[in-house]
């Protein structure tokens, strides 16, 4: 096994970036980390961050998931993957996969630091069939999902919507507008057979403000669901 470090996209940090600006007299426990020039591709999180949350953006190939992640992320989108080998099959109760040795699902992600304690991870995930076998393992505890729709390929979204409903995962639908949309949102709602209580919004995933408002729409929706649940119980 040769040295893994040579495989890395960036050289391993020889030293962490200086955690503090030049010596300060008074101890400043909560001072933010000196931000300039992170030695890694990713900006390090502050030591105080203790809770990470997840939101998943699901959509077909080329619909703009990574574009949306990039628009709002404080780090450039990274990519990773999970494999499920034959040995895991059965243990994970995915009998449908029997006979297939390895299933691999790749996904992109970015992050947004929300405050001193909380960071939000955004995952761009393919909605293809094999992905859903890994949903419970990877995305349990996710706050909610955005289904990103390309109106030229509406059928891709049907499956994702169906699976999210199956997993009991709250979601909203966002149409990424490539040029002039040919259909109105009510027409799209109809085509997706989307019930009225699920928000359907438009966006331009390249725009930070637009992508941000999609996330806010999702969290607003989750908040409404969550408060309704609390008052009813």
């Amino acid at each position: 096994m040769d040295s893994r470090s040579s495989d890395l996209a960036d050289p391993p940090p020889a030293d962490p970036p200086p955690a503090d600006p030049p010596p300060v007299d008074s101890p400043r426990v909560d001072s933010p980390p000196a931000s300039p020039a992170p030695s890694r591709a990713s900006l390090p999180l502050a030591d105080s961050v203790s809770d990470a949350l997840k939101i998943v953006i699901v959509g077909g190939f080329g619909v703009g998931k990574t574009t949306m992640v990039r628009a709002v992320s404080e780090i450039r989108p990274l990519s990773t993957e999970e494999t499920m080998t034959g040995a895991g099959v059965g243990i994970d109760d995915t009998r449908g996969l029997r006979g297939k040795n390895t299933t691999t699902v790749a996904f992109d992600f970015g992050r947004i630091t929300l405050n001193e304690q909380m960071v939000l991870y955004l995952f761009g995930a393919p909605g293809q069939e094999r992905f859903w076998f890994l949903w419970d393992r990877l995305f349990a505890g996710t706050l909610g999902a955005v289904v990103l729709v390309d109106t030229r390929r509406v059928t891709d979204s049907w499956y994702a919507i169906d699976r999210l409903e199956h997993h009991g995962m709250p979601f909203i639908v966002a149409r990424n507008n490539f040029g002039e949309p040919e259909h109105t949102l009510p027409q799209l709602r109809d085509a997706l057979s989307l019930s009225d209580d699920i928000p359907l919004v438009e966006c331009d995933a390249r725009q930070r403000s637009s992508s941000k408002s999609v996330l806010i729409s999702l969290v607003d929706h989750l908040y409404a669901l969550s408060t309704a649940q609390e008052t009813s119980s």
Partner: protein
Amino acid sequence: MIRAAIDGENPDRLYTVTAGRSRAADNAFDLVTLVVSESEPTPGMQSEHAAILRMCRTPTALVEIASELRLPVSVVKILLCDLHDTGRVSARHPSSAAVTTPLPRPEILKQVLVGLKKL
């Protein structure tokens, strides 16, 4: 995409990295569990373990470790369990992992909203 490295990965190498194990002992580690080093790498340590300890001098999510090491998430979970069992790293698990209700608490969501609006 530069994913060919894993797509064409030789499974033998992954088994070597994990000393033949294909699953972590428990599922305590979430994709977004934040890992923090509690010690420095030592000479002779497995290179992946050493890389994780260097990377986690500041809190680093499991998924970021996997991305940087270019290893599948499940392999990184095994490596982290090794380090965690020997006290070399500590883990800050997501609060949502402990919640069994389908919806997050309104207080959490309110904080998320405030954070997003500041973007």
